């Protein structure tokens, strides 16, 4: 699975599970905090569980910098797969 496919699947997951509208979510859109997307820490758990289940990559205890956006999550997956 290449980088673009991973990002596309991450986006699909975030939209379908966390209720984010697809048309406001780009790969470099900030996901958490005061960003328009505004995901919270509970949402990050969903992402951690998804990444673990889908790619077998453990993101428990990983720094916030890896959850900035879809780009950074995908980069972490690729680096640790």
């Amino acid at each position, binding site marked *: 699975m290449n980088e673009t496919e991973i990002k596309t699947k991450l986006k699909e997951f975030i939209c379908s599970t966390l209720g984010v509208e697809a048309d406001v979510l780009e790969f470099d859109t900030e996901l958490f905090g005061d960003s328009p997307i505004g995901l919270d820490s509970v949402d990050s*758990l969903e992402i*951690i*569980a*998804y990444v673990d289940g889908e790619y*077998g990559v453990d993101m*428990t205890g990983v720094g916030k910098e890896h959850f900035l956006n879809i780009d950074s999550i995908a980069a972490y997956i690729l680096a640790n797969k």
Partner: protein
Amino acid sequence: MKVAIVTGASRGIGRACAVRLAKDGYTVAVNYSRSEEEAQKVLSEIKANGGDGMIYKADVSDLAQVKQMIRDIDKQYGQIDLLVNNAGIVRDSFLLALNMGDLDSCLDLNVKGYFYCAQQAALKMFRRKQGVIINMSSVSGELALAGQSVYSATKGAVNSLTRVLAKELGGKGIRVNAVAPGFIETEMINALSDEKKEEYLQNIPLHRFGKAEEVAAVVSMLAGEEFSYLTGQVITMDGGISL
């Protein structure tokens, strides 16, 4: 098929939990750290009763080993339904005689180990939005016994952890409870002198020590669907000693 992991399951309360849960229909992963022979006996007993499971060697105070264990068990069975956080040690000492190596060992296994296993098991349970975590606490978590500051502190931490995790994970379909046994007939109690045993018995309203199987029965109850509205609780079963 439901899958349970019992840490520290080669002897005592952990062993009884593993055997009971297998009778309840769980496929049981019998975690052990050193006693492979004892763990194998537990698995043999499980199989003799018509159950199924595996033994898995892992030091649960080591996060890397916990991650590998949970990953392997999840991969083998496809799911994890129940974690019984049970592995623990007792290193009683009065404060001024306290050995800091013992303090570290207790904190690593009795507290950090519970965090590690809960985190990694919850990660797998999260996927299916269901699961149960049961933490083995102790009446010492509430009761002040001189010489047990370290053990009491670790079990107090387990009680707090239980309540907070119940709140964090409840919305994801994961229940978290604890069992706090009093004096249970295990190797630790059996090693006491008759005089010491009698001294303890005088303080227990039921005038007997509990049995590991009785603790396992509470674990079985907490894991079951009939108690699916119960979370964040510490169930004390101590023959009344804490009253």
